[in-house]
């Protein structure tokens, strides 16, 4: 694993020397076919950008790309969260409804006059509690990850509905909104600026920390090892039970973070927020080349996957001719193609 992963880490840095880069990619793909879906995701993302630029224009410019990041910051965080869980061979279906509960509770507390820092902390901790609950159910009571997180999904959605079934609006002067405020980094002509929000920066930090943890720490290696073979890693003396609970805690906590980022950008929370986001996150991860059976995958691939989904929405909006109801069919189609690709790659490896 180590030998194949380190070239991947350097790969983006080599992008300038294109011939060396392609030979390097070829070598990585040849030595480890499981990166092929990730490479394919990057190629598809670039192809979508090029196609969008040619067909609709105004894609490769500062504001479109910054908006892509701003509008998908929460999805990127979710994709990172889900990557941890899926790498161990589990699944977390509760992320969407944890966001609903966390944001509804957060907005209500903020409007009740709580200190914004406390509110943000509570929002994140709600996610942590859900993560701890699923982790304990899965690890210590042998409940299947699928069913345990399904229960948490029901619970989160139900509790959010108990709190409120109306859209809760964050007060206009709430300091939490600052996280969604846009800052110009580069001032382009007219509205063509590079803008970031603190939310985007949070998302980037999350990605970097996750990348570091997964590829450079003992915990990260244990996560991969559990996905490869749980019993072997236990026999090797790795901290399997602790790590398995930890990935669900990470996933829950990051869902709380995603709730903060999303709520601060939109300023509205509702009990139906985040329906189907677990599927978006799973789709982003599958597109990014992580195997759903665990053990193989890259957190940066998941980020690319999230951006592919986001860009797809932009292109569909730009096109205008595609009815919006086709979006889910297209997402499903893309997902199918990537799963088949994974299938082809893994079956080749086994023979």
């Amino acid at each position: 694993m180590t030998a194949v992963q380190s070239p991947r880490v350097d790969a983006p840095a080599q992008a300038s020397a294109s011939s060396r880069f392609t030979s390097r990619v070829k070598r990585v793909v040849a030595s480890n076919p499981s990166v092929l879906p990730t490479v394919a995701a990057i190629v598809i993302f670039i192809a979508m950008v090029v196609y969008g630029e040619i067909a609709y224009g105004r894609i490769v410019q500062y504001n479109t790309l910054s908006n892509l990041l701003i509008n998908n910051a929460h999805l990127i965080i979710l994709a990172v969260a889900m990557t941890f869980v899926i790498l161990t061979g589990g699944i977390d279906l509760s992320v969407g409804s944890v966001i609903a509960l966390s944001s509804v509770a957060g907005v209500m507390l903020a409007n009740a006059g709580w200190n914004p820092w406390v509110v943000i902390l509570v929002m994140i901790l709600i996610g942590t509690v859900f993560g701890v609950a699923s982790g304990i159910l899965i690890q210590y009571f042998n409940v299947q990850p699928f069913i345990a997180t399904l229960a948490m999904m029901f619970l989160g959605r139900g509790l959010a509905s108990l709190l409120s079934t109306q859209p809760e609006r964050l007060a206009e002067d709430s300091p939490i909104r600052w996280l969604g405020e846009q800052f110009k980094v580069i001032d382009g002509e007219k509205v063509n600026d590079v803008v970031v929000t603190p939310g985007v920066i949070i998302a980037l930090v999350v990605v970097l920390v996750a990348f570091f943890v997964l590829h450079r720490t003992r915990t990260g290696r244990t996560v991969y090892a559990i996905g490869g073979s749980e019993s072997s890693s236990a026999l090797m003396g790795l901290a399997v039970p602790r790590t398995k609970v930890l990935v669900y805690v990470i996933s829950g906590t990051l869902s709380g973070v995603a709730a903060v980022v999303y709520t601060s950008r939109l300023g509205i929370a509702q009990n139906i927020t985040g329906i189907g986001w677990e599927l978006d996150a799973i789709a982003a991860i599958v597109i990014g080349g992580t195997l759903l059976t665990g053990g193989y995958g890259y957190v940066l691939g998941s980020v690319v996957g999230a951006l592919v989904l986001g860009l797809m929405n932009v292109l569909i909006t730009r096109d205008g001719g595609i009815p919006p109801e086709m979006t889910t069919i297209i997402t499903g189609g893309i997902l199918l193609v990537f799963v088949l690709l994974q299938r082809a790659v893994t079956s080749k490896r086994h023979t």
Partner: protein
Amino acid sequence: MSTAARTSRLRELVRKPFFWGLVAIVALLALNVLKDPNYLAITVNPVNGNLVGNVIDIVRASAPILMIAVGMSLVIATGGIDLSVGSVMAVSGAVSMVFMKDAGQSGSLGVALAAIGLALVVSALLGAVNGVLVAYVGLQPFISTLIMMLAGRGIAKVITEGQNTSATNDPFRWIANGFLVGLPVVFLIAIAVVVVVGLVVRRSALGLMIEAIGINPKASRMAGIKPSGLLLTVYILSGVLAGIAGIMSVGTVMTVDVSRTGYQMELDAILAVVIGGTSLSGGKFSIGGAVVGALLIATLDKTVVFLGISSSATPAFKAIVIVVLCLLQSDRVRSWFVQRRKPPQAPAQAGPVEVQQKQEVTA
């Protein structure tokens, strides 16, 4: 000997697949009776001789859940899962509504039958796509039906062009709202389908073969079972049953709401199967358990509304039921009771906890 025998008999009772489901139904009904002593009363409507009462409502509401739960228990028995049932319900409802709207003729039985036939064919097709992906392409059931869940809702939206579509057709409406010999037609249809499926899988070797696939696909192939064809059949059956459920659920209001019809029904189906005591890891199924599970979910839905709690909060109660059931099924909790050497008290201890938790939330 006597204590050992008593212990094992009690264990057997507790381990009966749907024992806790029955306990929960009784507890919920008791809760309702506490609030309204006449809750269980069933009266006869003097005008048309139909039975009227809360229990009849529950039974009627359980019909679509019964359909998908039976399909789901067979799929789960093969070691798979079908997440697409809710979306297939929406597609089936959309197909039948759009067909009847375009056909007009609100009194025609032929139009109703054609709409039902068309909806079931489309549902079977969607089920077949799942089946081919799982059985022949070799994808994980979880992911292939997840794709169908995403795409299915999109297909339903494309069919209705994103609009809620209504139609009028009396024979079709009768299926969902009519009564036959005093009982709701939907329930009679559901029971008939369940009995037919139950007889086919249990009176032939089919059920055993399905379970064999779930236990060990390779071994079952070596024993002469063709897993691919059987898997395809099971997924098609699940699709068709979801189609029937879709027809039942749009028939009550004669409107298909593409984003609400069948929404999260796959979770109800899985829940029903889990309540029925079927392990999600496959290898065995219990149609009777699925029936108990479906009835429990319908009872839970009606109880929450009856107690005056927002119906969108029902998922929280379902979650509590899932967690409690999973805990009761887990070896660790069982071993706690064994270690305390008080096995006879196990049901007595666990029962009140379950009810108590429910009451805490409802209170």
